[in-house]
């Protein structure tokens, strides 16, 4: 569309500092802002949890806000005295921590001090682990109370019981048996500097780079690279189950490309168009997952429509009107990152993990603007093969499936 801006409009000035331990620190100066943001993104997510013992990455996220020494104030208390606010998140691929402080004199140095000392003597004892496990259980309770929460728990439980690597769902119930000793053993992997990116954005001082080098010289301990994860997808399965749920839901999943694969942008567009799905990529493997809701015959319709859609996509790709709509939505999201410091920092950190480069916004805008129908056709033909699709459905117990959902068998 003619109103779309050129990729250069998304340019953001950045400077990369790599510490001795391998930590990548991205400096993204923006003198016009009145806040400073520190955004950590770790290349560790629910997909990295040990099979059968979910919740480690999420637990690590919570513990990261703990006391930096026995009896000392915790992270949030110290951040609060700077007028700062924090947040944390864990998804399937990655996890992150963020802080925002008002940009006053000395704020950058104080924030840097807080972040660089954060890992040196973080307290991970039985008390802290037990407390955060209880908090995680309460979070799970919130999910249960949310719309379709019970359905989601039922689905997650089913997904977890399968052997698919993508079943390591961030909302799978956390294993309550984690101990402090186990978490401490895993910590070097969970907070490996070589798998971590810190973005500092906002009005940064002139000597920001020197201060970063001085603060993080020995801030984190580098550990050996972990061996590649086995991501060979299991044979696709098609199953449905009657459950105590209010509304039926169906998950469809395909093996997907790893991070930074050339097909990634085309597949993002295709997955969104199919049904708001997303591409969840790991370093070695990935998946495409979509979720549809409905009851009885409607779920059957979803499956039939899915088959028809996949056939059409692999033959012709996405049409120009659909591509134009998706392109505009994506570019608007990227444009928002110019105005939202925290969003910008998170995108930059994700860019570092995905491509190693710091021109995230320009590169992604360029990729979306260059996307054409042939790209989506090739990507669909390569990745969206119907026999490889795994379908998993849960329907309310009272539902009579007549006719039954095509292609699904009842799980007993």
């Amino acid at each position, binding site marked *: *569309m*003619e*109103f*779309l*801006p050129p990729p250069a*409009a*998304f340019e953001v000035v950045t400077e990369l500092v790599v510490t001795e331990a391998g930590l990548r620190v991205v400096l993204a100066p923006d003198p*016009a*802002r*009145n*806040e400073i943001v520190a955004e950590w993104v770790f290349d560790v997510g629910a997909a990295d949890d040990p099979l059968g013992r979910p919740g480690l990455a999420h637990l690590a996220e919570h513990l990261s*806000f703990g006391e930096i020494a026995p009896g000392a104030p*915790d992270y*949030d*208390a110290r*951040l*609060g*005295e*700077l*007028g*700062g*606010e*924090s*947040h944390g998140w864990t998804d399937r691929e990655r996890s992150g921590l963020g802080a925002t*402080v*008002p*940009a*006053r004199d000395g704020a950058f140095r104080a924030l840097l001090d807080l972040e660089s000392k954060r890992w040196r003597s973080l307290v991970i004892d039985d008390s802290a682990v037990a*407390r955060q496990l*209880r*908090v995680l*259980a*309460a979070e799970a*309770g*919130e999910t249960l*109370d*949310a*719309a379709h929460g019970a359905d989601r728990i039922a689905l997650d439980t089913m997904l977890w019981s399968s052997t698919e690597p993508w079943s390591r769902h961030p909302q799978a119930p956390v294993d309550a048996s984690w101990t402090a000793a186990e978490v401490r053993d895993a910590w070097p992997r969970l907070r490996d500097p070589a798998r971590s990116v810190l973005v500092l954005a906002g009005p940064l001082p002139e000597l920001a780079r020197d201060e970063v080098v001085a603060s993080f010289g020995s801030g984190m301990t580098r550990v050996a690279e972990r061996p590649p994860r086995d991501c060979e997808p299991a044979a696709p399965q098609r199953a449905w189950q009657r459950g105590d749920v*209010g509304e039926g839901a169906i998950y469809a999943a395909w093996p997907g490309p790893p991070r930074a694969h050339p097909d990634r942008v085309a597949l993002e567009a295709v997955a969104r168009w199919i049904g708001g799905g997303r591409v969840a990529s790991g370093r070695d493997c990935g998946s495409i997952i979509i979720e549809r809701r409905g009851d009885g015959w409607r779920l059957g319709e979803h499956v039939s429509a899915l088959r028809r859609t996949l056939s059409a996509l692999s033959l012709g790709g996405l049409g120009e*009107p659909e591509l*134009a*709509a*998706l392109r*505009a*939505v*994506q*570019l*608007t*999201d990227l*444009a*928002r990152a*110019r*105005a939202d410091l925290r969003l910008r920092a998170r995108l930059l950190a994700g860019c570092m993990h995905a491509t190693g480069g710091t021109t995230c916004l320009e590169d992604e805008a360029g990729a979306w603007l260059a996307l054409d129908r042939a790209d989506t056709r090739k990507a669909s033909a390569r990745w969206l093969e119907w026999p490889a699709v795994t379908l998993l459905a849960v329907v309310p117990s009272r539902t009579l499936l007549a006719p039954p959902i095509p292609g699904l068998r009842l799980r007993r």
Partner: protein
Amino acid sequence: MTPGLLLAWSIATDGLLARAELRADVRAIEAHPLLVDHLVTSAASHAAGQSGGTGLHVAGGCGRRDCVVVVEGLAAAVPLGQAAVEQALTSMPQLGCRERRGMRRAWRGRPFTPGLVLEAALARAVGDPSAAQVDRASERLDLRAPAIALASRRLREGFGSDPVAPAPPPPPRASPTPARTWVDWPGATRVQVAVAWASSGAGEDLVRDATLAGDFESLFVQALREDGGLTYDVEPDQGEGWAAAVFDVAAGDLSAALTSSALVLSVPLDQLPGRLAGAHLRLLARHAAARDSLAGQLAPLPEVPPSPPTALARASVLAWVAVGDPEMAPGAWTRVSRCETVGDRACPGLRMWARAVGARVVASVK
């Protein structure tokens, strides 16, 4: 755009993005939630259909003072969204009205929360005049026709071009014994407890910031945990002359929530200099950020207090209000039903709410 329809759009741009707003005083459109809700739904679908999808965000809602419709997105595409809103406005009198949606904040997307009921009860308990407004809004069948007529007239005259000055907030009514109201919600599996205190700030409250900032490390949540409660979802709320913390707790945490709210509000804040200073810094930064944002360029911003207050005493607490199953209610609370709270008509959305909280569906609690 219909000939003769003069719309006063306010527009701000920032690089690639632009934001356009239509704003009107609440009292200019009495059935505002119905109209604004419907307008936004129509305009959003119209914009998407007309432009083939442009990444435009169309939103709207009413606060206690005014109603606003917003179009935000890539600057070159925003005019398409404005045209869609105008198109929806011209066709509005012919359209039916959907059920009223809670216009309060989104409650993090959880529909089980009886936000309207809690809001109404809280506003009544602290003497907020908006309580009467909530009552009126529930009588949607009686108001539909005159409201549409009134809105149409206002739109012909110029939407938002003739604002009515808002009434000053009433003085806070602190009493030695704060009101304690329990709203019966049969079958609810959780409880929402709101504790409200006097606040003269217009939209900003340092006490709220000092006690609620830091997510689950906030003062409220720390106190809740120390008292054995594990639920950490405590969110702010505010109205004219009051501010509040709303605890969303499992039934077993009710006692801890009550204890911790009383405890936190009895601590003089000048004993917590770090938190108070941090809250003040945060407030200043937020105010500056709002001023620099697209929305801030279009909306009047509240004044920031020049210095933090020095203390908050227990006597400043105005009221406790809770919504939950009658069997969970403590003894010394004034009991009302949710239907009494939102008006004398049938409970709006009862079946949906009851299902969402996992309750048995009851015909009526009156």
